């Protein structure tokens, strides 16, 4: 093989990765995103026009805030958002606890523990979220005395706990075996090894998928609107049933979700960068 041919073989994959890098870069992905959104919005507007939809955007701001004599009063949408964040936050904390326990059971040498964890995981992963919510509300509700809110929190925590347990498991397994051996050889207990050696090291591996789960949690919390728990999507449904402004309200609600999840993703990137320094 001649020197130039070798060169060509070497550069072509490099060029391909640089193309991929360019497409993956922030400005380019934002541009693609905007283009796609533009097509969708334009089509929607045209369709709405064709069916003679009466746009009433001017009526939207009052659902965010209203100026009264007493000052500015928050409208239904911010309160719905507070509901969504409180619900997702509570459920997420619970989900992390469930995920950690399930992951530790799965990695333990207790055969029963591994079986329980495995069974839980398969059961939850193979049940649609909506069905799980119905089970929590209509079945566990009367049995364990759960109200709408606790049933929703429980359902979301269990569903995402299963996913989070896999994140924990992967993160824990990413810590090399030598770390266990070194910790064991100075006589640490299993619990101490997790607490002081393994978990602190696996945080770095778990942070990116974990923030992904926060975002997923916020998005899937919308499903509890089917049992009328007070949160953002429920607020949207309520406003529409009063005003019939379904286009404006759903666009607005979607935008609010998007702003919140984008803020979280950006914050997560900053956090990851800070954790990555220490190598």
């Amino acid at each position, binding site marked *: 093989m001649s020197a130039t041919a070798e060169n060509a073989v070497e550069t072509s994959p490099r060029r391909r990765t640089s193309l991929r890098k360019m497409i993956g870069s922030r400005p380019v992905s934002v541009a693609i995103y905007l283009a796609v959104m533009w097509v969708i919005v334009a089509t929607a507007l045209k369709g709405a026009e064709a069916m003679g939809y009466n746009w009433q955007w001017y009526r939207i701001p009052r659902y965010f805030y209203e100026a009264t004599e007493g000052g500015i009063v928050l409208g239904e949408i911010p309160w719905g958002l507070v509901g969504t964040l409180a619900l997702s936050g509570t459920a997420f904390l619970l989900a992390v606890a469930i995920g950690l326990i399930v992951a530790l059971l799965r990695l333990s040498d207790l055969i029963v523990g591994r079986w329980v964890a495995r069974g839980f995981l398969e059961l939850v992963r193979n049940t649609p979220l909506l069905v799980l919510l119905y089970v929590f509300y209509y079945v566990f509700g009367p049995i364990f005395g759960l109200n709408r809110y606790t049933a929703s929190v429980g359902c979301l925590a269990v569903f995402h706990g299963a996913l989070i347990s896999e994140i924990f498991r992967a993160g824990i397994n990413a810590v*090399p075996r*030598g*770390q266990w*051996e*070194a*910790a*064991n*050889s*100075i*006589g*640490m*207990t299993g619990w*101490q090894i997790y607490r*002081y*050696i393994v978990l*602190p*090291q696996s945080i770095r591996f778990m942070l990116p998928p974990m923030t992904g789960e926060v975002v997923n949690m916020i998005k899937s919390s919308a499903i509890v609107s089917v049992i009328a728990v007070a949160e953002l999507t429920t607020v949207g449904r309520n406003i529409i049933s009063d005003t019939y402004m379904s286009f404006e309200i759903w666009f607005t609600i979607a935008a609010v979700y998007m702003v919140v999840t984008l803020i979280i993703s950006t914050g997560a990137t900053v956090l990851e960068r800070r954790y990555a320094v*220490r*190598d």
Partner: protein
Amino acid sequence: MSDDAPIIELRNVSKFFGPFQALAGINLSVVAGERVVVCGPSGSGKSTMIRCINRLEEHDQGSITVDGISLGEDTKDIRAVRQEVGMVFQQFNLFPHLTVLENLTIGPIRVRKMEKARAESLARNYLERVHIPEQAGKYPAQLSGGQQQRVAIARSLCMEPRILLFDEPTSALDPEMINEVLDVMVELAGTGMTMIVVTHEMGFARKVADRMVFMEAGRIVEVAPPSVFFTNPESDRARMFLDQILEH
């Protein structure tokens, strides 16, 4: 316990990995203060044998007694033994998220329940002993291989063990760093520490070993003082092995 009662005793120890027999009836007694160097071809079971002594591997047959404690299923016993038996690994296995000082104090603080201030002065003391007191605040990744291995030795020493096990402590090091680690180990041998060292550093073995143990295929083939082992080994296998590694 009298002075020459063994501090480590392996009786007829066998170990299987699936169908593969890694150790086949190992008998070995080590008395307190003795320095034993283990050598033998790759795959002969050297690592497996010393890892059974602090139960990083579980033996399948026979018995292992360390400092009067018989190794079995009892996790309290196992942890008691591990506090008396330090281990130095080929790959150092330092905790990368902790500073050098924290690497050294975590055992004393968490396992021995020592106060932080006392643990730190102990740690600084041992860093001095391995000649790197100035590195206390750094993270392992900021040190050279030789320095990392000396930190690992100091970490073991901080538990104030009665026995130290070394599994090829210099084989992952660049040649120019091997001696700084071996020097520390020679000094350690001078303090009366009981040591079992798996190594192919025959200069070190000549200097410190009380006994040489030669292994092959999961068995101990020959045990002899270095003066005999290096000049006139009994077994042909040991002779061939020595010819091979001393060629260089």
